[in-house]
């Protein structure tokens, strides 16, 4: 059976390995900047919310006046990194439907975050007490992040969808636990979920999208 046109098992196995290793390599290169971005956000949450927690305990290790600027700096760095990643991916060399999809989804994040900020600022303006605001602000943003990740459903990205579910749960649980434990929940659970997804994606274990050839 094994002639030139009907290759033997060895050769077929070799070609399968070539295909599988190229699949993993392509996936891991395509998602590399996204993986780094997830790691940056995980660090921003861990440091930012960690510092807030340490400043809000009954016996604070960090003065509140120092904690808030650190938190703000972490979030600003992560936002700038997100924008840079978006700009770079627009010049990744791939044109067409998936680039339009990525661009619109990127704008969804910007609009949702700006919208949430305006809503919360409005609530403060009409008299939201500071104690409530301290719980509501991170809760609303974590909820919005979770909902945006559910958008992964549109391209059947299970890792993104799972992150969405975790963030929505985290927002609810943290808000119920209240100050200052909610900061600790955001500092620990969010980053762990992001890092787990980042590592699985980066190693090519989990594709960001299902393999297109089997779709």
């Amino acid at each position, binding site marked *: 059976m094994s002639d030139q*046109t*009907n*290759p033997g*098992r060895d050769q*077929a*196995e070799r*070609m*399968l390995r*070539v*295909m599988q290793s*190229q*699949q993993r*390599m*392509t*996936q891991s*290169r*395509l998602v590399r900047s996204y993986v780094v971005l997830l790691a940056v956000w995980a660090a921003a949450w861990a440091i930012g919310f960690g510092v807030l927690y340490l400043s809000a305990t009954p016996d604070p290790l960090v003065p509140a006046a120092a904690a808030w600027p650190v938190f703000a700096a972490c979030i600003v760095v992560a936002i700038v990194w997100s924008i840079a990643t978006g700009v770079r991916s627009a010049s*990744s*060399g*791939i*044109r*067409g*439907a*998936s*680039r339009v*999809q990525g661009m619109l989804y990127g704008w969804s994040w910007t609009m949702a975050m700006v919208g949430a900020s305006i809503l919360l600022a409005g609530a403060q303006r009409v008299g939201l007490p500071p104690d409530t605001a301290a719980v509501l602000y991170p809760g609303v943003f974590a909820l919005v992040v979770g909902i945006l990740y559910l958008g992964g459903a549109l391209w059947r990205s299970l890792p993104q969808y799972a992150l969405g579910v975790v963030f929505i749960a985290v927002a609810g649980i943290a808000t119920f636990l209240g100050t200052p434990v909610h900061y600790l929940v955001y500092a620990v659970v969010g980053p762990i979920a992001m890092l787990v997804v980042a590592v699985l994606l980066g190693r090519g274990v989990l594709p960001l999208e299902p*393999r*297109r*050839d089997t779709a």
Partner: protein
Amino acid sequence: MNDLDPVIHAPARLRIMTALTEALADGDDITFPALQKLLDMTAGNLTTHLAKLEAAGYVGIAKAFSGRKPTTFITLTPTGRTAFRTYRAHLLDLLGGSS
């Protein structure tokens, strides 16, 4: 018909077809340098194999200007996508159908 598609059945071309299938959605195309980076292939090698894939109708190659710079764009044709799927199914078949 138990023959594997000879156009795809060469490591370099199998890698090109795999990378294009993974990276491109229907209607997408990719620049030559970006594809080269995904594959870690020399420009000469990639050009040679792309020409063979183009002759079989599996990829489309178009030159266009992005700004003032002439750029080569590569796309996977529907025929190419189908051929890759067939090749893959065939290969798995030969190995007993396990993925």
